[in-house]
């Protein structure tokens, strides 16, 4: 609470977001304005209206300015964000290797209009934007296919931290829940700050998060206690590969079990 300035029209926002101006500030701070912006976008998309580009740009500008203010700037996209989709049962969004960013209009429609959760579409927008930070590693699929938790847990953890804790939004907390809790329990076990860990990992390209993981954790742990030994780093890698394995993607997180797993790395 001490970080939150009690001034301005949206005191629930962290100071970095309170410094935004105009429409971007309103979209981060005002839930009703945000819902109307998503509804306007969906109306224009369904009608095939030329207003769609403006509606997309309105939300996207707010996302870009917010991430910039929070020190997590999105890199330049190849094209403006595209709204696509023919079925709700498709990816909520996708950041492509060639720097395009697509969001599913059908998924967004289900979330915003049917399920009443426009903040979840905001979370998706931020999540995909967090993937757009650096050129992807050429062999990124070799990490992402078997170990999605490293990248997706980091991106989703940061996305939720931003929209929930920094902006007071109310998205679903279910997407990639296992991986997000794996990160959170790791930082509990090692006495490090989860936001710092995610921000440090975000500095690496998609496809290089797993490679950098033990060094980053060791460096952050050293600020509190001591750097990890090479044996501890080896065990940390083994535990992380297990918990961030793609096969865990649909599992429900259990805090005690996750904490116990991480602690084996500290022996």
């Amino acid at each position, binding site marked *: 609470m001490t970080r939150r300035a009690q001034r301005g029209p949206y005191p629930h926002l962290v100071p970095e977001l309170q410094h935004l101006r105009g429409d971007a500030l309103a979209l981060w701070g005002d839930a009703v304005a945000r819902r109307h912006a998503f509804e306007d976008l969906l109306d224009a998309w369904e009608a095939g209206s030329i207003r769609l580009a403006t509606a997309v740009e309105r939300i996207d500008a707010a996302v870009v300015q917010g991430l910039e203010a929070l020190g997590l700037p999105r890199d330049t996209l190849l094209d403006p964000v595209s709204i696509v989709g023919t*079925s709700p049962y498709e990816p*909520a969004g996708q950041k492509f290797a060639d720097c395009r960013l697509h969001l599913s209009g059908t998924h967004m429609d289900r979330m915003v209009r049917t399920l009443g959760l426009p903040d979840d579409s905001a979370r998706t927008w931020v999540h995909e934007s967090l*993937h757009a930070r650096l050129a992807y590693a050429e062999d990124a699929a070799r990490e992402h*296919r078997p170990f999605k938790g490293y990248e997706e847990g980091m991106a989703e953890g940061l996305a939720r931290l931003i929209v929930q804790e920094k902006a007071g939004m109310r998205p679903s907390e*279910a997407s990639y829940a296992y991986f997000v809790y794996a990160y959170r329990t790791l930082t509990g076990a090692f006495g490090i700050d989860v936001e710092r860990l995610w921000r440090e990992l975000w500095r690496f390209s998609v*496809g290089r998060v797993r490679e950098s993981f033990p060094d980053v954790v060791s460096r952050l742990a050293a600020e509190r206690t001591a750097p990890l030994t090479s044996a501890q780093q080896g065990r940390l890698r083994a535990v992380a590969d297990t918990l961030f394995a793609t096969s865990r993607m649909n599992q429900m997180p259990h805090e005690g079990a996750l904490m116990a797993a991480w602690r084996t790395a500290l022996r």
Partner: protein
Amino acid sequence: MTPEQLLAQVAALVAAGREQEALGFARATGPGVRPALTADQFARLGGMLEGAAMTLDLAEAEARGATKVARAS
């Protein structure tokens, strides 16, 4: 098929590296799932499919060397 069965099958296909099948299965089977997915289930599905689609794109980009010419991000 129930929502949890849909989610489990999609997760299994993605974990097996059969991302294209996972995407096709969700699209074909999702509309017939009863009861309808809750918001949390829908968010879980959208996330899993996002991950599947991203892996496919990364693999395709590597195959054609596209990441080498990626302009910025």
